[in-house]
């Protein structure tokens, strides 16, 4: 029996035979996440039904030195849930129970496989919702959101997953179940909860999540404004922020993105617009009314040639439909595309958008821009045709150049999709060796053997146990093949 066969036998005994997959056809189902150009077939897939199952799997991995990768809904766009060929994939899709909804505490306790939107659905009858709303909210899991520190259109005002999770149960890479935080804020000690959120499955597996519920606002108003250019729309965005208004969301789409959305969902955006802004305001009615007038005036002042206001929920949904369908819609105007995710300071929007256009033109590819203008989170869609020789490479060059632009302007290589496998190589461009080394100190505290989602986030993990800062480059043990770094 090989190591994996023995592990499978052990896990079948622990979890039950149906919860351990080894059939190659079944394993293939899990070979990639939302970033489909990386594919790896895992050695083993487990489908735990309880947190105890997860702990049993991780313990078995720890004892045998087997790498493991957690997977929620597999919608990640950075290859975070890409399996390890010699490792175990822990799929949380059967951990899908909402354990408790406590409006009086403004909390809900859920299992990690629960779908984001389901939390809001469970809370709405009480007048609450779950604020973080990634565009994938109908399919992505809370566990995946925790791992990616996901955000959504409304994070400008309401923050990200990290601002809305107050408690976790995690299975650490040695198979222990540990509680971090709870229903109350500010648990004493280091904020390990804060460090875990956004760690992309490299510090363990979340098995229970306590989230904040947010009171539904009294009023929501949504406005769509058409501009001749992204420069104008960008200026309007800056003016809104400068006026002291913090909208729930400010989203921008450029002409190419609008064209794609129109082709897909006929959202009826202003004809001939070089850019549209969607501005959503929410809160107490009187506040929203006053801010709404201010925002409308500022848009007009900065060149909006048409402004529309959603009169009801249906019209609001239509305005958002164009925005939310944009990624998928691009498939209608281009056979292939790369979704990039980078962040720049909001004030750098005009110059960076212009540079993106120039770089795209230089390389003969098109870039559609759809993004969270309020917080500078760009999602350039780099369009190409894989059938045309060289185009894919050129698209990748442009995509990489965009990240360099983000770093150059003091931004980040990812605002919400994570580093995963896709951007690990860019980490040294954004962080110094010492910065990365410091992150590794945390990794070593949680996962000294490096078995939790190895190969993700960090281009070169350190060997744990050595004193910090003493080694640069390849570790001598590693270089001579005495020790292996996953």
């Amino acid at each position: 029996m090989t190591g994996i066969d023995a592990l499978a036998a052990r896990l079948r005994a622990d979890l039950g035979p149906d919860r351990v997959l080894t059939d190659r056809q079944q394993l293939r189902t899990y070979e990639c996440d939302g970033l489909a150009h990386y594919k790896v077939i895992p050695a083993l897939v487990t489908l735990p039904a309880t947190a105890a199952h997860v702990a049993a799997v991780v313990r078995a991995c720890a004892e045998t030195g087997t790498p493991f990768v957690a997977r929620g809904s597999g919608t990640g766009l950075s290859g975070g849930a890409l399996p390890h060929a010699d490792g175990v994939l822990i799929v949380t899709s059967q951990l899908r129970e909402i354990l408790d909804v406590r409006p009086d505490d403004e909390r809900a306790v859920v299992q990690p496989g629960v779908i984001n939107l389901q939390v809001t659905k469970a809370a709405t009858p009480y007048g609450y919702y779950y604020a973080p709303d990634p565009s994938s909210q109908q399919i992505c899991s809370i566990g995946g959101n925790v791992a990616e520190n996901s955000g959504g259109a409304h994070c400008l005002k309401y923050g990200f997953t990290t601002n809305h999770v107050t408690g976790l149960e995690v299975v650490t890479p040695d198979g222990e179940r540990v509680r971090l935080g709870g229903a109350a804020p500010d648990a004493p000690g280091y904020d390990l909860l804060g460090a875990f959120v956004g760690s992309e499955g490299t510090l363990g597996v979340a098995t229970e999540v306590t989230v904040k519920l947010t009171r539904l606002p009294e009023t929501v108003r949504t406005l769509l404004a058409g501009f001749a250019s992204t420069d104008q729309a960008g200026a309007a965005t800056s003016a809104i922020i400068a006026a002291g208004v913090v909208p729930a969301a400010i989203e921008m789409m450029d002409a190419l993105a609008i064209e794609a959305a129109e082709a897909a969902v006929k959202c009826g955006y202003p004809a001939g617009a070089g850019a549209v802004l969607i501005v959503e305001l929410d809160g107490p009615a009187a506040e929203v009314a006053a801010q709404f007038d201010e925002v409308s005036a500022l848009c007009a002042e900065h060149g909006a040639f048409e402004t529309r206001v959603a009169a009801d929920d249906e019209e609001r949904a239509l305005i958002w439909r164009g925005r939310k369908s944009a990624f998928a819609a691009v498939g209608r105007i281009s056979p292939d595309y790369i979704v990039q995710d980078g962040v720049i300071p909001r004030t750098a929007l005009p110059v960076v958008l212009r540079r993106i256009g120039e770089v795209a033109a230089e390389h003969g590819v098109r870039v559609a821009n759809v993004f969270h203008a309020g917080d500078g989170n760009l999602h350039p869609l780099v369009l190409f045709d894989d059938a045309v020789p060289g185009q894919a490479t050129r698209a990748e060059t442009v995509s990489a150049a965009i990240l360099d632009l983000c770093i150059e302007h003091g931004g980040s290589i990812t605002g919400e999709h994570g580093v995963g496998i896709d951007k690990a190589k860019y980490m040294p461009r954004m962080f110094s060796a010492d910065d990365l080394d410091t992150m590794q100190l945390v990794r070593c505290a949680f996962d000294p053997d490096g078995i939790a989602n190895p190969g993700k986030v960090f281009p070169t993990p350190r060997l744990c146990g050595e004193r910090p800062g003493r080694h640069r480059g390849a570790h001598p043990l590693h270089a001579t093949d005495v020790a292996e770094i996953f």
Partner: protein
Amino acid sequence: MGVLDELTRPAGAADVVCGVPARLVAAPRDTAEAAALIRAARGLAVVIRGGGTKLDWGPPPRELDLIIDTRWLTGVVEHAAGDLITVVRAGTPMAELHGLPGQQLALDAPAAATAGGTVAANASGPRRLRYGTARDLLIGITVIRPDATITRAGGKVVKNVAGYDLGKLYTGAFGTLGLITECVFRLHPVPAASVFVRAVAPPLHAAKVLAGRFAASACEVNAAPGAEPELAVLLEGTPAGVAERAAAIAELLGGEVSSGAPPWWDVPPWPTGGVGIKLTGALSQVPALVATAVGTGATVRGSAGSGVLYAGFPAAPPGAPAADGTVEAGRAVELLRAAATRAGGHAVVLTAPAGVRETLDMWGPVPGLALMRRVKEQFDPERRFAPGRFVGGI
């Protein structure tokens, strides 16, 4: 020792942390000098001092050779108004950050506290209900590790998920993982109008405010033995908007609208030389927590909307019979800790007078302690930074 001699001076009478005198004091002028200092200070036990407004929070250091004072590490490096962010050196007094033109760092720290100390202590006041704490507003940080490595995490943009969110780890770490030298904060616009509603009402009524869609910026309780409990709500926004909401809340609570805060607003409830405790719990348990605390003789203040309360009382020296108005601290902490645990939270003794302090378990039980020890071991294997001051003797 040459470099150390250059950078330090002998400690004076005021250079004492919780009764423990230091041998040396240094006040570096920039990040590079601070790193040189820490490199030269190998083997020395270090405590960092910001404004010193709460250096007595937590147990005394097990050892103390060197106080690193951040008083010269000051200045706003950058205020990018259009991006609503600011970059500041760690020793910058909060007073400077309260007064940024048109914008604010929305933390209720006192004017004399420093940016670094506010982050290191993660203390919070009334407005955490709306703006969160230092943890939520810190987006980038520069820290010198105990091994003198200069390291940065986060950056200058609010939305950033590249790598681990180490800013969270340093926030509330009380200087046990290194010296913070620079912080990047997210700012908020100064609201056009703000107004308070004050009412004599039990803490239970705070739930009415939260259940209404008033978007309050703060909802504070104040309760003391023998006095009527009070509630105060802060509303921020447009002049017309706050007026309308304030009127509605005043009616709901039977209270009054006022432009100023009540005198107890954001004032810690412990007397000088008294015992100060932070109590946390699930929101629905706030009334019970307040009742228990008042029952032990404590004055209680805090945020009914976020479940963070502060309790304070004068303490009788251990063994002495409780004089008028004093409380036997050990017993009170025991009761409060039990109540906080029932409420799903924690009771942490922030400060207590010498003599009493030694008799108390200041931090109480801490879930995840084994992992925290492993984190400390990685960052500070020689246990030199604030030794013994943090949870579990870290």
